[in-house]
């Protein structure tokens, strides 16, 4: 194990999905023994780059070399033979197997000790050496997420990885576990391993890495030495220049009216038992678009679901157009006046295997004219569908065709058509233009902006440009908290970028929640 890991050199790497490049002519250098931070917004191509490096995907073009020797990994096993191992964002462990069994799973007979006892003692030694404590005889289902991650890392070390690629390892960890992970990483580096650390979080990247590479929309936006850069510079590389984003030109003298959606002190438990939303307080008024910026996974989904009535808050109150909807279900929130375009179009917003006419009346099938006394009227449903298809320009539907075969833009228009056709006072739209082509995105955006004339709108998006373009008020969410609030005329993109990555958290915590809420509401 002496000496440093080989120098990994990537040149001109391109990988496309369906003709759209996920990474485009990327250059990347990982020196032996360094911790290299890989930053970028969601969808920037981080996971794709890592998956190419670990042999899961094959690049369309470009070269990879180790210490000057060109390599082409045909599979993760192949990469592993060259000492490159990856821990994926979503773990790949067999729940009912033990730690030791998982670690040797898929290894060739010749490469692994014959007895499980022997594997277990080797794993225990390795765990001791790197401070990745976990019981080799425990079953995976008995372990916490943090422990499962340690198993994944041990799996790669066991197979002789010198270069470790960790895809967003801290996204699933609590603070304490994060500290332990970084201790283990330092131990690895001290022994000559090198580590690629994919992250969204500015603070940890600045604190623990030697160098940083930023990906932006599949392109390398720059590689810098951590010691000689600032969070602001990195944030600018991630989210673009402040002057690049333009605001949509619309009536600045828009009258702001009464509250359409008010949250006060709302906290929500996440799926892992931690607080996913922590004390959210803000108001969306008639005539106002409030945009929530933030890197995905910071509680946005839970916040959307609690507003829509798909989750219950552990504390706080929610009002929709004057009706208390704190513990209402989805039916009641819709009745109170909430139109909801969920993040997950197929599967939540639409039943993918059913035809368009079914999905168009997904929320109004049980009312006149679509049904009377529980009996559906096919002709009324078809009439509604034809009207809305026309009005919202939904294309690509064939009679009886399952809706999942339509393109993303048309699916989104169909959802918007359904939601806006209901009586409503406030529109909640999550990632409304994600994955849409320019024309469809523009159409969706203009529907959203139209809503502002008479109603309130709350938009969630990971695309900061879009948030800035359409919003009157921008809220920033980080780790479940609303950490910043800006009116459209006092936007500071640099600061928003910093807040999104958590490095401005100290500044924002001086901002009391009351101050946040008054600013958002004014």
């Amino acid at each position, binding site marked *: 194990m002496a000496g440093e890991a080989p120098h990994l050199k990537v040149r001109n790497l391109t990988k496309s999905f369906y003709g759209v490049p996920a990474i485009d002519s990327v250059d990347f250098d990982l020196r032996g023994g360094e911790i290299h931070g890989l930053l970028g917004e969601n969808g920037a191509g981080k996971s794709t780059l890592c998956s190419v490096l670990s042999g899961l995907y094959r690049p369309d073009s470009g070269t990879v070399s180790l210490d000057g020797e060109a390599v082409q990994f045909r599979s993760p096993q192949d990469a592993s033979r060259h000492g490159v191992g990856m821990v994926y964002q979503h773990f790949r462990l067999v729940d009912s197997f033990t730690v030791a069994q998982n670690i040797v799973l898929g290894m060739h007979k010749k490469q692994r000790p014959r007895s499980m006892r022997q594997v277990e003692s080797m794993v225990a030694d390795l765990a001791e050496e790197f401070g990745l404590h976990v019981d080799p005889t425990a079953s995976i289902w008995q372990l916490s997420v943090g422990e499962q991650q340690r198993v994944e890392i041990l799996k790669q070390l066991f197979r002789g990885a010198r270069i470790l690629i960790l895809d967003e390892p801290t996204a699933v960890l609590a603070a304490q576990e994060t500290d332990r992970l970084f201790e283990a990483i330092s131990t690895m580096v001290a022994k000559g391993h090198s580590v690629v650390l994919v992250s969204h979080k500015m603070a940890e990247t600045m604190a623990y890495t030697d160098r940083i590479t930023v990906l932006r929309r599949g392109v390398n936006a720059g590689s810098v030495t951590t010691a000689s850069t600032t969070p602001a510079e990195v944030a600018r590389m991630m989210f673009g220049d402040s002057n690049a984003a333009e605001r949509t030109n619309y009536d600045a003298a828009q009258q702001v009216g009464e509250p359409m959606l008010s949250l006060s002190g709302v906290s929500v438990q996440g799926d892992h038992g931690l607080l996913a939303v922590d004390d959210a307080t803000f108001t969306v008024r008639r005539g106002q678009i409030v945009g929530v910026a933030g890197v995905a996974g910071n509680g946005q989904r839970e916040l959307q679901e609690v507003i829509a009535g798909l989750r219950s808050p552990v504390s706080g109150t929610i009002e929709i157009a004057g009706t208390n909807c704190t513990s209402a279900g989805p*039916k009641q929130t819709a009745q109170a006046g909430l139109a909801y375009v969920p993040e997950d179009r197929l599967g939540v917003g639409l039943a993918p295997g059913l035809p368009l006419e079914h999905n168009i009346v997904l929320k109004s099938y049980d009312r006149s004219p679509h049904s009377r006394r*529980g009996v559906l009227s096919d002709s009324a449903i078809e009439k509604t569908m034809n009207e809305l298809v026309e009005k919202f320009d939904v294309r690509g539907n064939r009679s009886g065709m399952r809706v999942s075969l339509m393109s993303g833009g048309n699916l989104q228009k169909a959802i918007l058509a359904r939601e806006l056709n209901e009586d409503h006072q406030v529109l909640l739209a999550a990632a409304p233009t994600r994955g849409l082509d320019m024309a469809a995105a523009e159409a969706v955006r203009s529907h959203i902006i139209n809503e502002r004339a008479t109603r309130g709108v709350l938009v969630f998006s990971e695309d900061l440009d879009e948030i800035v373009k359409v919003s009157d008020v921008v809220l920033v969410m980080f780790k479940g908290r609303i950490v910043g609030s800006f009116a459209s005329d006092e936007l500071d993109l640099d600061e928003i970028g910093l807040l999104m990555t958590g490095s401005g958290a100290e500044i924002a915590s001086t901002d009391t929640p009351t101050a946040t809420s008054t600013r958002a509401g004014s």
Partner: protein
Amino acid sequence: MRNRLRVMPRGVTGPEVRFGVPLGALAFALLLGAIILAFAGNDPIEAYRTMFDSSLNGWKAQSRTLALATPLILTGLAAAVAFQMRVYNIGGEGQLYLGAIGASWVGLALPASTPTPLMLSAMLIVGALAGACWALLAAIPKAYFNADEIITTLMLNFIALSLMNWLIFGSRSFWRDPRRPVPGGKRLPESAIMPSISGRLHIGIIIAIVAAIFLWWLLRKTSWGFQIRTIGDSPRAARYAGMSVRRKTMAVLALSGALAAIAGVSEVSGVTKGLEPIALTSNIGFTGIIVAVVARSNPLGVVPVSIFLAAIATSGSRLQSIGIDVEVVFLLQGLIFLTVTAGEFFVTNTVSLAHPDTSATGSPPTSEIKAAI
């Protein structure tokens, strides 16, 4: 690197696929069967003609086939309605026994002079309720604790079977006829027996067909069925639209249990005419699952599929009478089942060869990722 088979879901399934594939599968099975028959030293043409004559040629043969199809339609519907919501009720067998137990209790308990329509209605209602309650024993744990209904409904089959056996063989129960030397059920009074249409064919067939049409209407044309179809396709979308998945799970399992139980009512009242455990345990409930799968959970498809399976079954005994070994007959029946069900896969998917390199550029190759690890 080897080439991989690439399986893609078909988008729209046109009628040519929906009917063509099963018919093609049938032809394939008959061809394969002919080879087997020839090898076994039989004349395939003669065998197939006998099959056709004994099951579908002429009213006598047809009525025999329809009589056999009657309970299959009902258990097929029971499975189909649950499958529509992706609830896997494989407890049709046990629910059928409960229907038989309930109905025979009513038939024996009410005065024999009760008018037949009243008697039969009471038997249907009590039998259906018994089956529904039996299904709820699996539905409630599923709805509240997400207990796997495949396991619970299967277990309940064994309990129902033991219960029925105990009533007749293990106790001096109300159902058992003490005068018979070999344990058996009391014979139902004439007023509790489903009127015959022709030979063994009784009005249960009408009940079954009406049930199929009603179920189709319920699923396709009512807002209740709208919810079932939504939940079956995507429970998350259903929840988003404000539907109660829990309540529907219980309702659908209860309905499914009631339908299977009506098959039991029909059998006990129209065929065995008393609670006869041996005659009632002929896997009608389990066969209903096959029926539902082949009919792609479409209630209207259940009727022809049941008749088709019944036809294969009725022709079996005749094939034996012309000297074909019983094993060969079973082989032939199994072959036809198997190819038609396997053909189902090609109705919903297309299969082609793909080189691994090209497939890696396409959609997220989940199966390849899994295989790579």
